[in-house]
């Protein structure tokens, strides 16, 4: 590992100003991804600006039913918060489906959203990888890609985003607050992560000198919500495919629906085609299947990950069907 300087940030402004003047400085959150990547030689910062002690730790109502979550709220604390458990079950479930108890205790909200892909070639500095070394090629496309993308990939990169939290935020129409040297901007969660296109080195729209300070949740949408994740073992494994869903059914008809897939693309995949197909449709398994198929018609699986398409379809159908069954899930906002 390359030797590096370390400073513990005392306030947000200084942290941003320090990183802004130094191209090889990085913000440090819980370190569970960054330190891992530094050991692997993938990240080689000259300076770490530790932002994990900045007082961005609130989970506060901010009017209009909105909730503002500070970037330093630990994954375990966010998942356990009574307001999140009661009003945004999909969010609590997504966090608890990720990583391990130890990792969730260290991982921050900001760091979770900025964790890098688990693509094996990205993590192995002896291999080419367009994301790590732009222009060097993408060996995953013809190599080991069972865990990688079936939707929205490009010839340059077929990686998936590993965050479970991000999938729930996409379904909840959350937004991300970014602070840079020139002030603050708010970006929709669905527009925060990006597709690889011809710039796979950029996972998100954040700039080098922007600090993720908070996540904002709008008032809970009507209906019920849930997260379901398929993985190679029952716990402590990344998603092969996952689904975050919000569903409101009145008189047997879908009144409102939000659906997002994880594990399928370079970003959480908001299933707008499926949502359109479901609005006003009868809340039946047949509708759910039809809608999921309509969304996944855009899938372009690689040699070894075609199984993800029916897996995602079946997960979506099961989650929506369980949400439609009013007696078994909590009402949002209750």
């Amino acid at each position, binding site marked *: 590992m390359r030797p590096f300087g370390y*400073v513990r940030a005392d306030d947000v402004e200084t942290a941003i100003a320090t990183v802004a003047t130094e191209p090889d400085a990085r913000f440090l959150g819980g370190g569970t991804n960054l*330190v891992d990547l530094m050991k692997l030689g993938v990240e080689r910062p*000259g300076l770490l600006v530790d932002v994990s002690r900045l007082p961005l730790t609130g989970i506060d109502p901010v009017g209009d039913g909105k909730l503002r979550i500070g970037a330093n709220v630990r994954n375990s604390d966010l998942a*356990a918060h009574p307001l999140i*458990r009661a009003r945004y079950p999909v969010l609590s479930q997504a966090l608890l489906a990720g990583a391990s*108890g*130890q*990792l969730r205790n*260290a991982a921050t909200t900001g760091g979770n959203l900025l964790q890098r892909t688990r693509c094996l070639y990205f993590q192995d500095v002896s291999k080419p990888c367009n994301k790590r070394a732009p222009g060097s090629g993408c060996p995953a496309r013809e190599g080991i890609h069972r865990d990688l993308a079936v939707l929205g990939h490009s010839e340059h990169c077929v990686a998936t985003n590993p965050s479970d939290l991000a999938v729930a935020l996409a379904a909840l129409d959350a937004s991300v607050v970014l602070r840079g040297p020139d002030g603050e901007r708010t970006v929709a969660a669905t527009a925060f992560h990006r597709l690889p296109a011809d710039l796979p080195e950029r996972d998100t729209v954040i700039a080098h000198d922007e600090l993720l300070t908070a996540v904002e949740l709008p008032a809970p949408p009507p209906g019920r919500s849930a997260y379901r994740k398929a993985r190679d073992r029952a*716990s402590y494994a990344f998603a092969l495919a996952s689904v975050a869903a919000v569903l409101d059914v009145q008189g047997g008809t879908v009144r409102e629906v939000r659906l997002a897939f994880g594990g399928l693309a370079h970003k959480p995949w908001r299933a707008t085609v499926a949502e359109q197909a479901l609005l006003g449709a009868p809340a039946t398994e047949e509708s759910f299947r039809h809608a999921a198929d309509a969304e996944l018609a855009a899938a372009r699986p690689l040699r070894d990950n075609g199984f993800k398409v029916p897996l995602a379809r079946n997960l979506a159908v099961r989650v929506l069907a369980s949400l439609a069954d009013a007696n078994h899930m909590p009402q949002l906002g209750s």
Partner: protein
Amino acid sequence: MATTSTPPVEHRPTASQITLRVNGAAHRLTVDHRTTVLDALREHLGLIGAKKGCDHGQCGACTVLIDGHRINSCLTLAVAADGAQITTVEGLSDGEQPHPLQRAFLDHDGFQCGYCTPGQLCSAIGVLAEAADGHPSHVTPLPGTGSGAPPPGSPVPLTSSEIRERMSGNLCRCGAYTNIVDAIEEVAP
């Protein structure tokens, strides 16, 4: 401890003097910033209870408690833990008297080679505290679902499925899992 007013990167020190409070004793030490808490404990302080299995957050052998929370010490930089209270497996017993959880691991054969055991023990101490604090797990029913969901914030009963889920961050190559679950179940309230 360095602060944000220190000079540009090429002149910045790559080591710092820090204080770690380990099992009640304060230690002042100078660490290269690349040093993890795990390496500080093992290499600097001679506390070799916490084990290095994978060094990448994937096995739990390095689990210790920092300010009361279980974490993977292999992914925590020592400099970032400056000032923290750390409890390792060496700090669990009361003198010669093993911690009840250590006793239960012995009684239930909760190990074979013992390599994962310090991490299992520290992780289980964390699990007991988290459940007592009402922290849910992936298998805890949501509030309002009827099916035995604990009211938010109240202690979560540690059934064997709760223990299995909550301990999933600790791998055991010897496969002592069922006995580990039995041992924790015995100590759980």
